[in-house]
């Protein structure tokens, strides 16, 4: 049988052949062509690095001391005036005690001086009344003199009582001082840098001071009792002899003589107020609202005056700081617009300012951490519709008109 030729292949089979064999290859090549087109349209420059810019406030220690307690954690929101941490300062406490004691001593001294002047005035008037010639007046003034002698006795007793009070205040102050010295010495001994002998000496001194203060308190009590007795005698005499002048006129120059003591007392009270204000300042408060960006002090840590304790930052960045590496410097003018990108979100921002010269870039942006890099910095305003946090890293791309 003669071999017949192949049957005719219809067009649909050719098209099917084309679809199954050739089309994938053509599509594959077309894909590469599309990639080339898209690649050429894609901007080659990598986005610039920008950082959210926000106000940062440093909270420093108002006094040297020990951090007693920290009331906030990292990234906690804070309100203006909120207490952040508490410091303890033993030196400040000692100064406060000393200042209060000094104030009390000056008040007692002022009062004693006033009584002394009144006593001297009474003595002068008594001497004046002794020279009267008139017998009747002499009898009357004899009565007045006796009254004044009661007053003199009363004022002497008051003076003694004030002196006893002064002694008592001095003794208590001395006791406080010795107590503080003993506390410090015991603390040093616990830290193995003090001396046991010194501690023993101070304890003995403290015992003496306590005894002295106790004796001074007893003396003061007896003096006050004497004052009360003399007052009672004077009152009884005044009750038996009515009509006698019962008041003495104070010399108006007495107030002038006491001005110096009053001024010293005012100075001491002002010093005491200052120390009390410093003690209040041991509670560190937030100067403004925001968020805790960094905690630099921990409870139990000793800090010095003006040492940084923590940093606060605002919740929202008020701009973007863009770094242009030296290799990518481009001509930028104020008002030029940039696209700020964070992930898939973006917003436009305008240039507010540009650094005129080269500056050293932050070390975290260096390609090699050992080699410093330089460039320009641009300041952009806050992007529209994109809320950034201070310090947040974003990508920035120039928008070409």
């Amino acid at each position, binding site marked *: *049988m003669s*071999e*017949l*030729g*192949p*049957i*005719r*292949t*219809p067009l649909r*089979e050719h098209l099917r052949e084309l*679809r*199954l*064999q050739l*089309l*994938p290859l053509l*599509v*594959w090549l077309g*894909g*590469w062509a*599309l*990639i080339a087109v*898209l*690649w050429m*349209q*894609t*901007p080659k420059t990598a986005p610039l690095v920008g950082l959210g810019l926000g106000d940062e406030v440093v909270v420093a220690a108002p006094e040297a001391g020990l951090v007693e307690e920290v009331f906030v954690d990292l990234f906690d929101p804070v309100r203006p005036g909120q207490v952040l941490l508490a410091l303890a300062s033993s030196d400040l406490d000692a100064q406060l005690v000393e200042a209060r004691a000094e104030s009390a001593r000056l008040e007692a001294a002022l009062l004693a001086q006033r009584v002394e002047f009144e006593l001297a005035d009474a003595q002068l008037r008594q001497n004046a009344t002794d020279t009267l010639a008139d017998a009747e007046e002499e009898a009357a003034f004899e009565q007045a003199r006796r009254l004044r002698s009661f007053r003199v006795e009363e004022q002497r007793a008051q003076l003694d009582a004030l002196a006893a009070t002064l002694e008592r205040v001095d003794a208590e102050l001395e006791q406080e001082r010795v107590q503080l010295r003993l506390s410090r010495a015991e603390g040093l001994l616990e830290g193995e840098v003090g001396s046991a002998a010194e501690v023993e000496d101070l304890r003995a001194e403290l015992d003496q001071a306590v005894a002295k203060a106790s004796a001074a308190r007893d003396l003061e009590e007896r003096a006050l009792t004497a004052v009360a007795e003399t007052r009672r005698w004077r009152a009884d005499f005044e009750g038996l002899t009515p009509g006698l002048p019962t008041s003495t006129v104070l010399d108006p120059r007495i107030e002038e003589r006491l001005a110096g003591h009053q001024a010293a007392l005012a100075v001491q009270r002002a010093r005491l107020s200052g120390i009390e204000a410093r003690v209040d300042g041991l509670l560190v408060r937030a100067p403004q609202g925001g968020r805790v960006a960094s905690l630099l002090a921990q409870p139990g840590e000793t800090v010095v005056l003006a040492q940084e304790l923590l940093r606060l930052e605002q919740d929202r960045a008020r701009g973007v700081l863009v770094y242009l590496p030296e290799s990518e410097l481009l001509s930028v003018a104020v008002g030029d617009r940039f*696209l700020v990108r964070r*992930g*898939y*979100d*973006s917003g436009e921002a305008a240039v507010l300012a540009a650094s005129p010269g080269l500056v050293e870039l932050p070390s975290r942006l260096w390609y090699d951490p050992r080699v410093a890099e330089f460039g320009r910095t641009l300041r952009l305003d806050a992007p529209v*519709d994109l809320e950034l946090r201070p310090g947040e890293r974003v990508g920035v*791309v120039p928008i070409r008109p």
Partner: protein
Amino acid sequence: MDTLERLFGWQSALPEAELRSLLLSLTLAFVLGQMVAWVYQRTHSGLSYARSFTQSLVLLMMIVSLVMHVIGDSIVTAFGLIGALAIIRFRNVLKDTRDTVFVFYALVLGLAIGSGRFAAAIVATLCLLGATVYLAWVRFGTRGFFDGHLSFRVEGPRAEEGGFQAVMRRHCRRFESLSVRQGDAVTEFIFQVRMRDRRRGEELVAAMRGLGRVDDVSLVLQDELAEI
């Protein structure tokens, strides 16, 4: 892009540069995925080859590039995707790789929509579905193009001289012997054939039967040829 902005709002619209970047990624994943699939197809040995797996390689590469666009730098979104995948896998036994690809694609699309990236979701859907339909239409991943199996028996000795080769050359573009079973007086042949005209299969069978020594002719044509 203006239309997308009006439809979905400013935050959902895709900046032009981002659209270009997404298209570039998907296209590159498509062409590179095909290269990977071709090499896999050519170098695969054994009996477990499946065309659906080869197509899944291409689609998977495109889907993963979409995932990276959606997730971006967000670790929260990344963990959300991991969790969703784990739940789906735990609750469903995915027998076919293609099923896995489509489940993955549904998850990623949901992520894109849920995170407000409507434009990216639409663009990616068009690209991915277009690629899926295209790969199915061109039967991407098929090893050899045969239309079916032809089996017959030749009686008597020297079966190769039965004249069936001429008939097959007339009706078929290509034919390859799958098996030959030699009996005492009968030789059984099975060929896989590629027809010149699929609709004239009956003519081939009749022509084969018309040969004197050939009987029990059977032609099985399939659209989906199972590779075994």
